[in-house]
């Protein structure tokens, strides 16, 4: 029997998987960044749900930090992306492989 909590956790897991697939499979850097956002937010969802069910505020506190970091991360990610475009003329990940061994 699926409870509400389990459903929410399943949703979070589903979102995490989608995010992971986007990060690993999409070649477009903007999509990768969006995938990362999805990963972070699915984790947020899971945290909030657990904190609600466990009646503890800690999880929700954690979410605030994650949101802050996500904002900073996307700002940096986007600026890297701009530089990537300037240097390689594209934002596809397969073009930025100058560290190949």
């Amino acid at each position: 029997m699926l409870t509400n909590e389990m459903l929410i956790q399943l949703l979070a897991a589903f979102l995490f998987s989608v995010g992971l697939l986007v990060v690993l499979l999409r070649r477009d850097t903007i999509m990768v960044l969006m995938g990362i956002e999805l990963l972070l937010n699915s984790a947020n969802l899971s945290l909030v749900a657990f904190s609600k069910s466990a009646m503890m505020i800690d999880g929700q506190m954690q979410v605030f930090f994650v949101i802050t970091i996500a904002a900073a991360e996307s700002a940096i990610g986007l600026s890297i992306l701009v530089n990537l475009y300037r240097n390689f003329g594209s934002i596809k990940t397969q073009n930025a492989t100058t560290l190949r061994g």
Partner: protein
Amino acid sequence: MESVYSYLPALILISPLVGFFINGVVLPLKYKGYAKTPANVAGGVATLFIFLSFLMGLKVFSSLQGMNSSAPAIMSYCFEWFNFGGLNIPFELRIDKLSGILVLIITGIGTLIHVYSTSYMHDEECVGRYFSYLNLFCFNMLLLVMGNNLPLLFFGWEGVGLCSYLLIGFWYTETEKANAGKKAFVVNRVGDLGFLIGMFLLFRELGTLTLTDINLLLQDAQVVAKIMPSVTLICVSLFVGATGKSAQMPLYVWLPDAMSGPTPVSALIHAATMVTAGVYMIARLHPLFSLSETALTLVAHVGAFTALFAGSIAIAQSDIKKVLAYSTVSQLGFMFLACGVGAYQTAVFHLMTHAFFKALLFLGSGSVIHACSGEQDMTKMGGLKKYLPHTHFTMLIGSLAISGIPFFSGFFSKDEILYSAIALPNGYSLLFIVGVLTAALTAFYTGRMMSLTFYGKERMSHDVKHHLHESPFLMTFPLYVLAALAAFGGFLGVPHLLGNFLGHMPHYLATWLDPVVPMKELPLVGIKLLLHEAVVMIGSSIIAIVSFGLGIKLFKSHLYLTDMLKGIKGFHVVLENKYFVDEFYDKTVIRFVKKLSELSAAIIDKLVIDGAVNGLGNGVRKVGSSLRILQTGDIQTYGLMMLFGLLALTALILKILM
């Protein structure tokens, strides 16, 4: 046995080291470069510190005299050098009556030679380097004679070897001279191995390496019985060390080559001090050597044979320094002969007088070479007497002393050795005859050297003749001091016979050394003793005078033996080429070692070592190139790998936790 602790021995030791430091580090920093230090400054500093040592040595010597104890000694305990297992080696210095004499010789003659060098090396480059080495040498030599245990003695032993190498190759830009330094070092290494083995064996048997303890233990009959089976091996090993350092057969070959160093170095290191280290070591360990009849016989015979062998080579050499070098080898042979028959005191006596007259002769030859614009070949000298009056006078005294002309120092010590060689129980007629022959040879080649250098026709080239000049005061002054010592030093050891004539003059040196190195009782007593002594003394004086006169007279008009006696041409060639010993060593030992090293270079180095090193490098490179395909540069591949890794880790943790 009484010993007083004092800081003086340590100060005597450290003083030349300070000089070394100043000349080696401080002055080059001040003048910005080794070559820049002025000769007067470098020489002055070096002389000052060795002179300080000499003054302190005198102080110690006089306080030794003042101590009323049977065997006085002054010691310094500096620190514990190392201590493990049963082996405790303190850095401990000891001056007793034997090492006291050596300390005075080293610092006294050392000071004179430093003074001489200041003038002799005046126009050389890098005098700072020269004087720093010279001071370092004195430090090591003092450590050798003052160290109260064998490791310290060995430290000094190696140190003087190092300084000898550095100074022989002082003019290292000339390949031949640099090679002579290397030769000395390598040949000494062979001997040092023997010394080390002897030292290890001694430790195994006695459990101590402290000299005083060794000599104390050997008074115990039980210990003696225990050590008896291996004592010959120990003594022979130690003696091998002595043959290396003191240039005896078969390791003497380095000393003649060592003459390529500056002449004052030859005087200090290769005549007066370092080469006598072997004699000192045997005298120091005489209770040990006295236990082994076989070893003593070996020492005596090697000494006697070397004395004769080197003496005969010296007749045919034309290089003035080579003559003196072979003469040194020969005189060292005399000292070992004395040690071998058990006359340790006499060996020390001859060591002392030899230090005086041989240093004098070397410094004199330096003065001659200096005057002749660097010419060492006696066939291009002659008639120098009127140009170099001071050098001639002092060298004549040195020659008379070494030849054993009565009442000069060499006469007393050599006479005592000859006498011991037949009178002591270990001696017998062969040793005595070899000794007498060598004494005759010594007088003969010394006469030849004087004659070729100072008398006869002037054979130098016009240029050289134009530049002839007597050496400056700083060089002649040490000559005169040494001449005085060489002339009168022998009166420290007047034999009974003459002593009786001179109003019961005692044998000062024997009385002085008795507590440390006891004199063997002569088997003869009373009138028989005197008669024996008289025969030997008169006989050897006549031989010395005749040979010396012959040497002077014959070579006034001739240069070589062959000029006089046509029949000995072949013999002369053999002598001139030093019995082809160098060639023999080259053909046998050196060629063998070279072949061996070539073989090991081809097989062990090329295949094994290079194979291992290169194989490792190649292996790493192969592994790397197969791993590089993992490094795609694509960030998403890395992400995937991280995911797999994370999953694997999670699985592992789950497995452990469950």
